[in-house]
């Protein structure tokens, strides 16, 4: 590929031919302010904010569509370019309400950032501002017309990505405003939440998040969406140990810049307060809470006494590490059958403009990981039934993460040893001899294997409830003490152990997975669904 070399702000940069000036500037760490340009959408060059001074050009050039030329001299941050931007920003503020104190975008608003860094310190406008009020676009989206900067990113997203053109610009000049067709709204588009993400200002905001928290108060934790097997990369936004929203994190291989409304909306369960907080042991005299050391010591004693095939019920919401630790323990105890149940949607929902991103049928994040580890899916598409064998088990029975909501209260009552590991109390775990609290995925480090057989890491966003521990730690320390081996000290170590025993994960490690994950080995052998 041929390259061109140009000078931006006095620094030479070499980029492939056809690169825009905006991207060339990005290469050397110069961010040219822009609104209408978005890397995943077409560039209409209408916001006029990315104008840069190109030597020899008759007037400032929009850097998002101007291709870099050999020997070009570009100035982005002085003289004409700066003067132009200051003027353009002043135009934006003619009708912008400056209601930052009550605007949800405040703190992550591009207009706020740009005006603060290079706009005029004081406005000169004396005329009254135009007022539109707010409009309910349907779904989770609320539109504040006054704040809009007419970048039309939302219009182009609905046209090009969702391919469901329900938004348009109506009227012209200073009366121009984004609107839906008559009263039809966003027609419950499954992707509408993305227009809130790409809106550079507070014109499109989420109803669910409205007034809930200030952007600067939120902690962002890189994670993976747990709501279907696509495994979109997300950031979990938390404040005071409460999840407030999920936002997509860019990963060109999995979800681009986007995520679906279904995944975005399902986060309240991470904030559930009915949690198991300490290990319980059922003995002759009823339940007792001997603490982790006591519970694990007596569980180990019981496990030593019961060798033979175990029945295990796992969950596709558990991480690879958790499932691997469960498998290792089952093997240690003499092998057995590990099953899982997971809900399935009737159909897939692909994003027309970026079909790699699809809301998959499997509504659990780690079904592919469970398959790779040799787990067997049972039950129906609403994750019920299928546990008759486990319920009637007479040997050891281990349940990890499945809340057994449809099971009778005497579930597992015939088992010689019934261990329930879960985050939430379960009615059907009454017959359990050990009830051990484990963390949810949002409270622990780990990996999920998505539908593309891509192994992706997530980090803990919340503090664990009470004394809950990650399941890989509980199961790993049991296996280790039975085998007389050292206990895995971290999730990375637990994954290392798993990778040693599963050929698909061989050679992968946390450092190699990085922030965007990496495909597991031999994806062709299991990629039936793609």
């Amino acid at each position, binding site marked *: 590929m041929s390259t061109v070399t140009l000078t931006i702000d006095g620094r030479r940069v070499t980029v492939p031919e056809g690169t825009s000036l905006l991207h060339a500037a990005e290469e050397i760490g110069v961010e040219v302010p822009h609104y209408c340009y978005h890397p995943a959408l077409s560039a209409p060059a209408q916001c006029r904010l990315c104008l840069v001074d190109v030597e020899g050009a008759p007037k400032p050039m929009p850097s998002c569509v101007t291709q870099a030329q050999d020997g070009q001299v570009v100035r982005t941050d002085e003289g004409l370019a700066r003067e132009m931007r200051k003027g353009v920003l002043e135009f934006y503020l003619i009708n912008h309400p400056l209601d*930052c*104190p*009550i605007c949800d975008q*405040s703190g992550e608003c591009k207009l706020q950032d740009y005006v603060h860094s290079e706009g005029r310190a004081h406005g000169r406008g004396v005329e009254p501002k135009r007022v539109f009020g*707010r409009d309910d676009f349907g779904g989770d989206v609320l539109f504040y017309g006054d704040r809009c900067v007419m970048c039309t990113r939302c219009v182009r997203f609905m046209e090009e990505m969702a391919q469901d053109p329900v938004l348009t610009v109506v009227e012209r000049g200073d009366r121009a405003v984004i609107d839906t067709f008559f009263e039809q709204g966003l027609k419950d588009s499954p992707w509408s939440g993305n227009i809130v993400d790409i809106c550079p200002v507070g014109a499109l905001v989420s109803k669910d998040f*409205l*007034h*809930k928290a*200030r952007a*600067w*108060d939120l902690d962002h934790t890189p994670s993976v969406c747990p709501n279907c097997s696509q495994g979109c990369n997300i950031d979990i936004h938390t404040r005071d140990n409460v999840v407030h929203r999920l936002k997509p994190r860019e990963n060109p291989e999995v979800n681009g810049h986007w995520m679906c409304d279904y995944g975005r909306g399902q986060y309240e369960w991470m904030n559930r307060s009915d949690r198991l907080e300490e290990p319980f042991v059922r003995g002759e005299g009823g339940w007792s809470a001997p603490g982790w050391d006591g519970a694990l010591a007596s569980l180990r004693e019981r496990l030593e006494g019961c060798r033979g095939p175990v029945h295990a019920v796992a969950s596709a919401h558990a991480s690879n590490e958790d499932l691997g630790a469960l498998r290792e323990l089952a093997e240690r105890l003499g092998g057995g059958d590990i099953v899982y149940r997971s809900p399935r949607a009737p159909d897939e929902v692909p994003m027309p403009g970026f079909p790699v991103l699809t809301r998959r049928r499997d509504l659990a994040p780690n079904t592919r990981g469970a398959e790779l580890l040799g787990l067997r899916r049972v039950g129906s598409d609403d994750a019920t039934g299928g546990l008759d064998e486990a319920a009637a088990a007479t040997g050891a029975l281990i349940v990890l993460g499945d809340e057994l909501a449809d099971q009778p209260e005497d579930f597992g009552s015939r088992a010689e040893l019934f261990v329930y590991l879960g985050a939430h109390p379960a009615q059907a775990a009454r017959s359990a001899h050990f009830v051990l609290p484990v963390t949810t995925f949002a409270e622990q480090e780990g990996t999920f294997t998505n539908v593309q057989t891509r192994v992706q890491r997530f980090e803990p966003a919340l503090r664990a409830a009470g004394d809950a521990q990650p399941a890989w730690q509980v199961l790993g320390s049991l296996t280790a003490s039975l085998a007389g081996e050292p206990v895995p000290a971290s999730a990375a170590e637990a994954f290392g152990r798993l990778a040693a025993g599963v050929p698909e994960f061989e050679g992968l490690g946390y450092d190699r997975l990085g922030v965007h994950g990496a495909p597991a080995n031999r994806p062709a052998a299991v990629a039936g669904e793609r």
Partner: protein
Amino acid sequence: MAISVKVIRRPEAARSSYLRAALKGMSLTFRHMVNPRKVTRSYPEEPTELHPRWRGTHRMEVHADGRPKCVACGLCPTVCPANCIRLVGGEDDQGNRYPIVYEIDEFRCIFCGMCQEVCPVEAIHVGQHFENAEYTRERFVYDLDRLMEQEHPVTALWDPSDPASE
């Protein structure tokens, strides 16, 4: 070792009398009684005058219809160096952003006045007030109603005729 005795001579009566010192003290007292420049106040009958920039316990300004002026923008809990403001925002039935919970822990507060300075809608103020005695510690966490009930004058953090102190 022989015992030695130290003999102390008493001063003569004219010098040892306390009368002289007593009279000297009384004269000072009586002189102050008639001093026109006296500074002693008979508090609490006579209230203390506070400086216009005195920063005391807070007060929330209210609209004419009784709603708090606060729009729950979150700037005061952000700027507060003592982390004494707790704020939960929400939307009222007229679609206005307002504080569902607004609490100031006056024990944690260091009365720097930054909350008043940062407030974009001139809602929260520190006040010219210092008489805050309570029977319990809990009463020092002022909630929104309590802050709106306060009636003392608010602090002037700057001169309105010269806000930039030029």
